[in-house]
């Protein structure tokens, strides 16, 4: 192959990959800002809830929800340890209440019942 051709492939390839993913960063940031704005507007309408004053602490218990379905038990143990550690530092007792895997199954059973009522 012509070295110039190789160089063109490499540079344009890298540029486009970065360009594409930077566009996605922008899009996600815009989306996040919009949702923050919506939430902000809603909060103004509600009277401020004193318990919700520390937004960085509250979301933690829901952290396990972001665990991908594919975690095996080893990882779950790691997560549990991590959450426990976080919990200690914030002075709250946190525990894993549910791993997505289970939710999926039980909700699936319910969903099947529901969806079958109007499938095709």
């Amino acid at each position, binding site marked *: 192959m012509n070295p110039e051709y190789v160089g063109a492939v490499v540079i344009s390839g890298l540029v486009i990959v970065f360009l594409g993913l930077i566009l996605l960063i922008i899009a996600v940031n815009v989306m996040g800002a919009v949702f923050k704005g919506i939430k902000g507007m809603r909060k103004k309408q509600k009277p401020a809830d004193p318990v919700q004053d520390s937004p960085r602490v509250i979301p933690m218990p829901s952290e396990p929800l972001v665990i991908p379905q594919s975690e095996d038990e080893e990882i779950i143990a*790691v997560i549990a340890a991590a959450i426990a550690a976080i919990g200690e530092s914030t002075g709250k007792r946190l525990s894993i209440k549910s791993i997505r895997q289970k939710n999926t199954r039980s909700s699936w059973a319910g969903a099947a019942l529901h969806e079958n009522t109007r499938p095709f």
Partner: protein
Amino acid sequence: MIQIFLDTLADLARSSGLAALQWQNAVMILISFVFMYLAIKKGFEPLLLLPIAFGMLLTNLPLTEMYHPELWNIDEGAELDFGRILHEGGLIDYLYIGVKLQIYPALIFLGIGCMTDFAPLIANPKSFLLGAAAQAGIFLTFIGAAALGFNANEAGSIAIIGGADGPTSIYVSSKLLNAGGYEVEVGTIALAAYTYMALVPLIQPPIMRALTTKKERLVRMEQLRTVSKTEKIIFPIAVTVIIALLVPSAAPLVGMLMLGNLFKESGCVDRLSKTAQNELMNIITIFLGISVGATTVASKIISVAFLKVILLGVVAFAVGSASGVLFAKLMYLVTGGKVNPLIGSAGVSAVPMAARVSQKVGAEEDPTNFLLMHAMGPNVAGVIGSAVAAGVLLSIIPH
């Protein structure tokens, strides 16, 4: 009658596979045993490597007529004759049609989309940069392949191994290696890609340790924000639109990945999501594995070219991992130490193993440091990144 009987037996002996077995086939059969051993006993991506290795075995047993390379090795510019394939083909030829028409990789991406959680990426969109940086492995390997004398189609197929993504590798190589006469083929690319993906826990840690300081490895990252359900639903749609408008040739892979993810996140089509990520993906995986494995004819494996592919493959993984780590170091500097550079190597894809490697290497320094979720962001970004890179290769290299 005894004469006819003896003649028949002689015929059968002559038409037996043993009579037709060449030493190259025998070597290939032994190599297939090695891959079966790696898949079963060493746990090397068994879901793909076991069917691939068995396909390799079947195709090297002579006269089984299950796969016919001559049906697929057409001259450049010529077209596949599907009528002839149906008439003269065997079981694996029929299964291979789904590879050649690019159907299987796209449907596997549908299933992967149903299993992928993009929340860590939405919560920290800067991770996209790491998913982009790690694709440097692809493009630098392209240079290496060109230097070692491969032509553009071969080099593109070898380079995509650095994407650390099996279906993407098969998608690109089956498209670029459309005509016959190339020194590599889909099967060898797939073998190398899945083998190195299995080796990620061995390849990455030394590179990660070499390129980072202890201080960097100890960085604790900020808690990720919670992502709302609506954001998770909009994300796959937005990614599809943006990527397809920028690189249309990446649309089949990215589009199906995102459709799967939309199935998952919408929460209203669970029966489709469940089937796409289980039975449909399993069926496709079986068909894909057997037929891709069958393309590994002896002349393409027992060759100098294959040694080069093996070499370039490990270079691709190493460069990709290193690029990711180095870019993450840059982000560490720019953010004033908020980014742990160990998450950079996760940008190569190989979900979720690369992210687990980041977690593990981080935990070696500080067992209470919880990097996994932070590494999942670059990890899933790497999948998108290599699909985009695949699109670029396909749109630049004529095929």
